[in-house]
């Protein structure tokens, strides 16, 4: 019974990792860009929510809703004025620019908020739980997982049901031809990064409510997100959710055996999948 409990906790943790990963997966799918500052943007989102909560006393959920338009604008601007300039066949410039951005964000947060760990106030929510079939499930982990599923459903709806989604897919397939059909790839890319930062804000909300955070934890979140994307297969959002779940389960099972093995077990699960299925479990994109 204890093992079933551990695995279910791992699955729910995987929801959080899928939220970390969904934005990364979206941006990669559309413009083949890996944003090395992704983890630091999540941490920055958590600080923005914290700032709004302490200034206004609102609930973190409402604060996150207020933060979303700002984060969207930040993503849009970041892509339009900085990242679009370095997109191209050479992978080096975008990697180095986003790596530089990661270092800048991390140190700006350190300067602004110090290295002390912080947490978003959750009140009774953090301890609330429901009993399902003899297993106690935390309400917050359930909410996280539910949000991850909702985000992925919403992204799939955007992709396959809207004009914007059609533009996303067209630009992803062939940006030059898409631009002949009246689509401006630069704006499409900016929209994609804007939407990715909306997901980043949702991820930041749950990150900040579930655990302590400080300015240095961004790179580790990037790594979990990246592992989830690779395990799932590039370009598949449901694959990304499964990837998150695999990392989450590996971590909780590892931690149940020896607390020092938690992170290591997640990485090893990733390497095992890479060994067996180099292109992930549900590869869709060709590259």
């Amino acid at each position: 019974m204890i093992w079933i409990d551990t695995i279910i906790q791992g699955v729910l943790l995987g929801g959080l990792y899928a939220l970390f990963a969904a934005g990364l997966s979206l941006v990669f799918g559309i413009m083949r860009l890996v944003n090395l500052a992704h983890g630091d943007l999540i941490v920055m989102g958590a600080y923005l929510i914290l700032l709004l909560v302490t200034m206004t006393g609102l609930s973190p959920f409402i604060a996150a809703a207020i933060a979303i338009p700002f984060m969207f604008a930040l993503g849009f601007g970041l892509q339009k004025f900085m990242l679009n300039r370095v997109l191209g066949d050479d992978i080096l410039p975008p990697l180095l620019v986003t790596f530089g951005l990661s270092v800048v964000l991390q140190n700006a947060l350190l300067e602004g908020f110090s290295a002390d760990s912080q947490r978003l106030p959750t009140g009774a929510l953090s301890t609330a739980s429901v009993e399902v079939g003899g297993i106690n499930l935390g309400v917050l982990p359930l909410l996280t997982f539910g949000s991850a599923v909702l985000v992925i459903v919403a992204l799939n709806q955007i992709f396959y049901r809207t004009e914007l989604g059609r533009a996303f897919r067209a630009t992803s397939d062939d940006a030059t031809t898409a631009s002949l059909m009246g689509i401006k790839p630069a704006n499409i890319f900016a929209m994609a990064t804007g939407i990715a930062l909306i997901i980043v804000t949702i991820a930041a909300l749950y990150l900040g409510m579930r655990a302590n955070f400080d300015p240095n934890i961004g790179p580790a979140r990037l790594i979990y997100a990246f592992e989830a994307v690779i395990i799932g297969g590039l370009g598949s959002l449901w694959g990304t959710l499964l990837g998150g779940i695999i990392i989450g389960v590996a971590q909780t099972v590892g931690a149940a055996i020896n607390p020092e093995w938690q992170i290591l077990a997640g990485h090893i699960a990733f390497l095992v999948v890479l060994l067996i299925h180099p292109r992930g479990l549900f590869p869709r994109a060709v590259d």
Partner: protein
Amino acid sequence: MMTDHTIPYAVHTGTPVSRIVGIAALILILFLVALPAFASRSLIQDMFFILTMLVLAQFWNLLAGYGGLVSIGQQAFVGIGAYAMFGVVILAGLDPVPAILLGGVVAVLLAIPTAFFAFRLQGAYFAIGTWVIAEVVRLLTSQWKAVGGGTGTSLPRDATRDLWMTETIETVFGVRNAAARDILAYWLAVILAVATIGGIYWLLRTKRGLALAAVRDNIEAAKSVGVDAVRMKWTVFLVAAFGTGLTGALIYLQKARISPDAAFSVTDWTAFVLFIVVIGGIGTIEGPIIGVIVFFVLQTLLADYGTWYLMLLGVIGIIIMLFAPKGLWGLISARTGIELFPVRRRLTGGALSNSKPNQEET
């Protein structure tokens, strides 16, 4: 060299400037070797830092700038090289100086499985893949209790006191043991830096270096003329791992204290190195040399401002990448046409050239 006796030709890489540079480099090396005779201990330590960062930057540049392998996991090789050195000194009682070589060998042994995994990933995913492997190695090293686990350990006192050659240095320069150790480490760093720059320059001028440049510029075209791209990637990755491991062991010989978080630090051994190469100019031997000087000046001026310093470094890196992707050396080279380490092949003689062939100078 000659394949056709009717049309003699010759291939050169040297230029008049590069010959002057060669002589200047020899003088500089002699000066660097003689430096401990009149320099203060703190200058020797600064020079040690500059030289070791330069070596790390040259190897990262070889990987990313020439091999197209953008790794963010080079700290794995710094750390494992240093830990291998500590391991054999503490557990087997070996002298730390020969143990440095072992650091390089162990780094290569780690690089083989790393490459096996990481080469399954392309481009940007390769970058994060190497980072994951570096994290795995860091976490595993934290479990190694014999070298202090997560908190780390120091080199045993008698090992550092009786270090190879230090007694001679003590008597010749009339310094204490700790200063003699710094001088020894500094000399090893000079040897390592000269060997690295010389070795990479030699590699780039060989047939294999030409193949490497071809793979970097266009992998499909390179394959079509018979270049084994996979073998080139393996060669570059293993060579860089060896050099990075050696440097890691040398850096921690001088520090004499190690911990997993410091030895596997992504900021110290990869972020700084990456900025040095980007600021100086990626894909050139001159770039990392300029970059490390800029980096050291910035650090000396701004070290008291901690986080602001790192932010500034990040911003400079971003600006260079956006507006001058060839770095400072690229700007200088484009204006003046100077190449200190020319690798471009120039053809003289032959059917299409009017200039006189010079058969001696091949």
